[in-house]
């Protein structure tokens, strides 16, 4: 069933929670906040002590990321490929380009996708949203690709983001 992917609600949305990225015996956990506005997303990664580790801003043209800026405190770095930027400068592998849809359990409109029951297959990732708690949005999203496992636990959804 090819549902039409839900565009970002006009008012945007925001989610906060915890993200864990695991590859072989490397495991990184951070608190995150994702704020999606019409043509821009802002991802903030921070530690439990409250320190901000990095701030990634994605600009969109239509549904594609046109540019990404990573702020790590004193340094601003820009690139077209946000995954590469994040990976090179923080060591974290995270499929951020599809995140504004995958976080909501939806396929990104840019690439073909397939479904296996609850599981969404896109861009080489297996995306499993779950724990909907009788709401339209998942509170748990797991992303798998090769030996990489990303687990996202949502604390709070907020749809009236700026």
């Amino acid at each position, binding site marked *: 069933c090819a549902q039409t992917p839900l565009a970002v609600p006009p008012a945007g949305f925001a989610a906060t929670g915890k993200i*864990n990225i*695991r590859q072989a*015996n*490397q495991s990184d956990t951070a608190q995150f906040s994702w704020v999606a506005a019409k043509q821009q997303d802002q991802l903030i990664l921070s530690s*439990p002590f409250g*320190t*901000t580790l990095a701030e990634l801003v994605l600009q969109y043209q239509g549904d594609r990321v046109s540019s990404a800026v990573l702020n790590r405190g004193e340094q601003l770095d820009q690139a077209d490929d946000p995954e590469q930027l994040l990976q090179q400068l923080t060591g974290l592998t995270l499929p951020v380009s599809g995140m504004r849809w995958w976080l909501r359990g939806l396929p990104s409109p840019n690439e073909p996708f397939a479904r296996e029951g609850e599981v969404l297959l896109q861009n080489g990732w297996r995306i499993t949203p779950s724990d909907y708690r009788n709401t339209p949005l998942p509170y748990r999203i797991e992303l798998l690709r090769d030996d990489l496992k990303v687990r996202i636990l949502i604390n709070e959804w907020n749809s009236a983001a700026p």
Partner: protein
Amino acid sequence: DSVNDLQKYLNETKSLSANFNQTVRSKSGKTENSSGQFYLIRPGKFKWIYKQPYNQEITSNGQQLWLYDIDLAQVTIKPINKALDASPAAILTGNNNLAQNFNLQSLPTKDGANWVALTPKSKDGSFAQIRIGLVNGAIDRMELDDHFNQTTMISFNKVQKNAPISAQMFTFTPPAGVDVIRE
């Protein structure tokens, strides 16, 4: 002055335990609250427990660190040096020579506390500056500024100094069914 008071307090503190409340205020003004408790034996041994929303238990025996994430049902074991640069736990349990890693400066009294500013000598830590507030010569609160002008404020209560704490507290046994990752 406050720097000497802080040094004296740390020198005479063998063990410490307290409850804490933490507030993180981001530059957008949004705040996130958490609370928990900690236990420590100087130098190096601590257990730092965060309740909501972080739900983590961080234990160190001085050699290695167990990071137990309750939501993820996962324990990550890391060597101690790689893990915590200037976190609150590292400062309170660190060796007594703060002057080695920080420039120390007494600040004027404010909000009923005498403050000490600790500015890390190494640039690549996660904090731009840390401030410790002393009341009657005892550590009462901490403020940590990161590089994004965001401030973490921690206030301590029910503080117990030099009360006996069993060393068992500082080795962590992962509960059954929990993923254990050794880095």
